[in-house]
């Protein structure tokens, strides 16, 4: 909650620092009186706290004002663009998790195998190449040379109520492949490396040694006992990463001209379109907070030691 207030405040401050919007809205030749009238109408002459309270109150209702650039309600713009971004982020997160975790477990168990070393070497590339380079490389190979996948846009989107989805058309599926790989690669390698190092750590613990001494099968030990014990840190990182996926999506969306919020944001920055920028920031913060909450709940599900109420010390020694 506190986080949200701070973010809202910062977003609001932008209004006051990023130039005077009135300059952009009325022509150079407008008179001082005209400007003042405009300022009054926009409420820009009210005391600071009143302005902030109004901003926060509106924000809570999903009301962020009118875009200076497009002269349309920000809420409409955002809700048009959000599905594209969320679908991209979702696809990337699923890709990163579905590939990162199994590879992490594999390289953790077969520590010295040649295949593990190759995977790790490859993952180094994923960590060190910047997102836009990967994006451009992919475009070059698959769109320019091979010509099999589109290099920009989202393909045909289908409207489902207020949500527009690209998952119902072939062109939509084709269009999301390159951007989602681009966006996923970095996170995938992070997850892979984390899962691997956690697996290595857990494999050294006494309870894994004891599980072996009990004669449990390798499969039970690796997945039932070892992997589950890596989940708490892994969930943390994945949670944080879904957040940073949204942040990184700005770059990916720009490279692929993906019609999402990140692209909208970049265009807004270029135009000092403060209401859009503010709305974007508040929304991203909201997503971060939501994810944190989810992560906390998952901790609770995974690790019994965190369920404090049950651990009322029971059973001493006689």
């Amino acid at each position, binding site marked *: 909650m506190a986080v949200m207030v701070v973010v809202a405040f910062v977003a609001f401050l932008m209004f006051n620092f990023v130039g005077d919007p009135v300059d952009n809205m009325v022509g150079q030749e407008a008179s001082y009186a005209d400007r003042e009238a405009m300022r009054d109408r926009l409420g820009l002459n009210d005391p600071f706290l009143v302005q902030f309270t109004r901003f926060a109150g509106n924000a809570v209702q999903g009301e962020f004002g009118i875009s200076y650039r497009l002269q349309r309600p920000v809420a409409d713009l955002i809700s048009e663009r959000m599905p594209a971004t969320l679908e991209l982020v979702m696809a990337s997160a699923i890709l990163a998790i579905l590939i990162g975790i199994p590879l992490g477990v594999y390289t953790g168990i077969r520590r010295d195998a040649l295949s593990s070393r190759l995977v790790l070497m490859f993952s180094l590339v994923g960590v060190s190449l910047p997102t836009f380079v990967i994006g451009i490389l992919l475009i070059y190979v698959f769109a320019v040379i091979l010509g099999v996948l589109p290099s920009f846009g989202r393909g045909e989107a289908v409207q489902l109520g207020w949500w527009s989805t690209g998952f119902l058309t072939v062109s939509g599926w084709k269009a999301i492949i390159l951007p989602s790989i681009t966006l996923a690669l970095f996170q995938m390698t992070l997850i892979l490396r984390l899962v691997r190092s956690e697996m290595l750590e857990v494999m050294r613990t006494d309870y894994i040694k004891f599980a072996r001494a*009990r004669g*449990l*099968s390798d499969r039970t030990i690796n997945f039932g006992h070892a992997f589950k014990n890596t989940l708490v840190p892994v969930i943390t990182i994945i949670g944080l990463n879904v957040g940073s996926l949204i942040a990184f999506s700005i770059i990916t969306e720009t490279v692929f001209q993906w019609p999402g919020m990140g692209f909208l944001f970049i265009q807004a920055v270029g135009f000092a379109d403060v209401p859009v920028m503010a709305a974007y920031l508040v929304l991203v913060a909201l997503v971060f907070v939501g994810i944190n909450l989810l992560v906390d709940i998952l901790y609770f599900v995974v*690790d019994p*030691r965190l369920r404090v109420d049950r651990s009322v010390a029971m*059973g001493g*020694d006689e």
Partner: protein
Amino acid sequence: MALLEVENLRVEFPTRRGTLLAIDDVSFQIEEGEVLGVVGESGAGKSLTGASIIGLLEPPGRIAAGQIRLEGERIDNLPYDELRRIRGKKIGAIFQDPLTSLNPLYTIGRQLVETIRVHTDDTEAQARDRTVQLLTEVGIPAAERRLGSYPHEFSGGMRQRVVIALALCANPKLIVADEPTTALDVSIQAQIIALLKKLCRDHKTAIMLITHDMGVIAETADRVAVMYAGRIAEIGPVKQVVKHPKHPYTIGLMGAIPIVGRDIERLTQIEGSMPRLTNIPDGCSFNPRCPKVFDRCYVERPDLVPTGETTAACWLHAKEKTGV
């Protein structure tokens, strides 16, 4: 035929600077239902011997020579998966630290049921009944209600009881217990050892009891093996070894026995310390510290030779036999 026969066991660690010989030509036997104590200073090779028997030597450590036979069948060269079927079923193991031997994310009921079902054809319900019975047997009150508890909800002593239940749950023939009480509060150690001994007597399970504590050995074991620098220095019935030790190292150890009831003292009262694996002296490895050392000890390595009622590796006692 003894239950367990270890013959000329040799364990090596290949390292960059050459091969470390951690266990050198160790042989001993454990009879059915017998308690064999294994003592020796830190680094003597007790744990490695135990790990070799349960097939859990950690790479790069490996058995380089010798045989381990359980009920007459070799188990040291079994493929990993066949060995797995023996672990827990025929040979149970108990490790030092009860606080960390249990998986923190699963209830103790689940860990027991899981282990029982790996080794038997029990249904879930049968395994559950057996679990309750086992927990009761190891002295956990209201066992039925504790099945759903997690390890962190138990005290150290209680956890070690659960660990014992886990080691015993498939009725193994042998339990390798590596310092099963060292991590526990002194006041509980005796209880746990007594419990272990009683259970194994009831189930006719043999124990290889590794410990630093000569007092525990004197009270619990039938026979005792004294290890020094990767070899057995002396082995024999516990009464003889305690009362009439033959090997100078054992004699030193007996001098260091704590009075029962007093705090345990580590076996370090012999002057000097054990040589590192990298510079074990020629001849008898005990020669730098031995009060009775003489010429021959620097040249030739003594083998285990029966002397009276125990067996010792010392030239003092070999003389008569070999007639040198």
